[in-house]
């Protein structure tokens, strides 16, 4: 990507063998330049290989391997179900508390996982950044791709849970909205990840602050409680947290809870786009000096 004009000039060579040479101009960084999607596409193999590397490395030398991916959200959901469902007895929109939590845990873990992995990605790949050129955007996004695999595994567990609880919850056509909802989560997650990973290069504070941010953000989202507990007059402000709308949306799609959360979801889509644009913009602004700083 970067601030380079890429154009093709044709260069006559021997005989009919006409060859086009890529022309690149290297010049000082300017403040704004569009993302060069063509170049990112050209590096798609690198993207795939980096994502595969992250996936392979994650569970190398672990005994349980992929089981961790299942265990993590399941155990967390169980704990929340006991504490908030049984002990605190919070309402769960009439659904089994475990399912209620787990359905929200799906998008939430995707979001939090992206933040955690992408936030550090540029620093852990500092050696690459200082020695080779490629669109830097690939690094944080590839590390999110690995989290997407976790999501897929966790989703399979969700389906199993739906079977187990089939007498209390019935699957509706709402489930067809899931891909769209997933897209919104990715938009939000990647936007925030880009922002975090870029600034982490300059201020390592973000690395330390991240666990707290994730925790606070979690309680600001209707993960362990139902969004219906929020008073109506706070609804719009509450929905400025796009994860609120998304978690509601997931519950609606998977468990068929009430009406489609139109207001909060619309706000979530707008906020998601905003997060993505701001994140990508900040990333672009600072990426040209990554190699000098990291």
């Amino acid at each position: 990507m970067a601030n380079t004009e890429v154009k093709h000039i044709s260069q006559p060579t021997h005989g009919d063998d006409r060859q086009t040479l890529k022309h690149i101009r290297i010049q000082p960084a300017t403040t704004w330049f569009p993302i060069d999607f063509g170049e990112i596409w050209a590096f798609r193999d690198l993207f795939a290989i980096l994502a595969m590397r992250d996936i392979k490395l994650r569970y190398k030398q672990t005994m349980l391997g992929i089981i961790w991916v299942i265990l993590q959200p399941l155990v967390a959901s169980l704990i929340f179900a006991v504490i908030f469902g049984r002990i605190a007895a919070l309402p769960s929109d009439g659904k089994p508390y475990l399912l209620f939590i787990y359905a929200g845990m799906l998008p939430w873990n995707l979001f939090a996982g992206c933040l955690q992995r992408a936030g550090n990605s540029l620093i852990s790949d500092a050696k690459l950044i200082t020695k080779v050129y490629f669109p830097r955007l690939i690094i944080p996004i590839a590390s999110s791709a690995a989290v997407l695999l976790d999501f897929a595994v966790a989703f399979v567990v969700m389906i199993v849970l739906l079977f187990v609880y089939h007498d209390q919850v019935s699957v509706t056509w709402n489930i067809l909205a899931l891909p769209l909802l997933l897209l919104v989560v990715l938009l939000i997650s990647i936007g925030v990840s880009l922002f975090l990973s870029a600034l982490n290069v300059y201020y390592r504070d973000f690395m330390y602050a991240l666990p707290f941010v994730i925790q606070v953000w979690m309680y600001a989202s209707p993960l362990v409680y139902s969004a219906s507990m929020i008073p109506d007059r706070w609804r719009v402000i509450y929905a400025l947290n796009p994860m609120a709308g998304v978690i509601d949306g997931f519950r609606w799609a998977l468990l068929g809870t009430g009406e489609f959360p139109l207001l909060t979801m619309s706000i979530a889509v707008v906020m998601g786009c905003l997060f993505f644009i701001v994140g990508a913009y900040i990333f672009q602004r600072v990426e040209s000096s990554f190699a000098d700083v990291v």
Partner: protein
Amino acid sequence: MSDIAIRVENLGKSYQINHQQGRSKYRTLQEEIVGLVSNPFRKTEGSRETVWALKDISFELKAGEALGIIGRNGAGKSTLLKILSRITRPTTGHADIYGRIGSLLEVGTGFHPELTGRENIFLNGAVLGMTRRDIQRRFDEIVAFAEIEKFLDTPVKRFSSGMYMRLAFSVAAHLEPEILVVDEVLAVGDAEFQKKCLGKMSDVSHEGRTVLFVSHNMAAIKHLCKRIIWLKQGAIAADGFSEPVISQYMMESAVYTRQRLWPTGIASPGVDEFKLYSIRMLNQHGEMSTSHEIEHGFSIEMEYEIFKRLPYCRIGWQINTATGIIVMEAYDSDSVFYSGIREPGRFLSRCDIPGHLLNTGNYLIDINAGIPNLKNLVNLENVLAFNIVDTSATGANSSVERGGIIRADLIWSQEKHNNVPKGSFVRT
């Protein structure tokens, strides 16, 4: 229509050096906030200094040309390569690059110790800009060149360092960019590996690809590149044919003093049994000098102390031309008086070199003391520089420069043969 591969115009790169906040390049928010509160006008107070790593670099490189870049550490060589490889941005100026550029600033970039050889080939290849198809197509060649067939599915953390280097270089060597940028990768690995790398590099440049090559190995760079740019403190000090530029560079990096003194013996750090104190050059009158006339001899003197009985210890020197060709080496053990065992004590060794031996030009001296095949005591490169001049100015040819390294005083004679029958020039 242009056959230019790289055009660089007024390229410059500056870094901000922050004097107050010390060494770390990145900051913490706390530092930033504290700095802002305690010193809100920091930026105008000049606590930051701008350092130009590169300034006003301009050159053109034609397609198919091999360009070497030399210079001391910190002269800006790596910065220049990083800008051309698009890793970092210039501060001023611009560069135009025509063609796919592949840069090799390090051997094994992106290698992950936990992944297998096979996985690392794909990872490293992709990092260097190859597509999966390119890598698959050349996979067998890469493996064969690296000689690691048996270990393809072993994590590279179990590789010996030699295998690791071979694999890493092999991937890089099978890149097929139109422009190849290489930084000092030959400085690693054993002699055999270096030779293999050099051979591959030389193939690449002879295939007509454009090569930009940074190295401290003058012999390698001269072998690969016809043209050399010498960078000095971020600017181009010289740009031209390899030989003259290398010799200019070598002569400048050597010290033109008549003697070098190490009164405390610091020239030999870490060696307790041997200390070098001084080395000097003397002319035929016994005066210290760095310039010697071709017809007169000169001497090299070394003062040193031996603290312990050292069997087979020898001390000597090597004279090199400014372009790095070894002219000769000599050791005190060559002498008929050398007994094979050096007793402790302080010594002065002196070697007289006759006149009419070296051609006019610039030369460099290396010093070496050690026990052959056992221990190196002192090894100093380019410790002194001297030149041989021809001031005799007699004879018709005296002002003409002669080729070659040696210029012996030879005997010429001619006989005039009269009345020789035709066709009988053969001496019987």
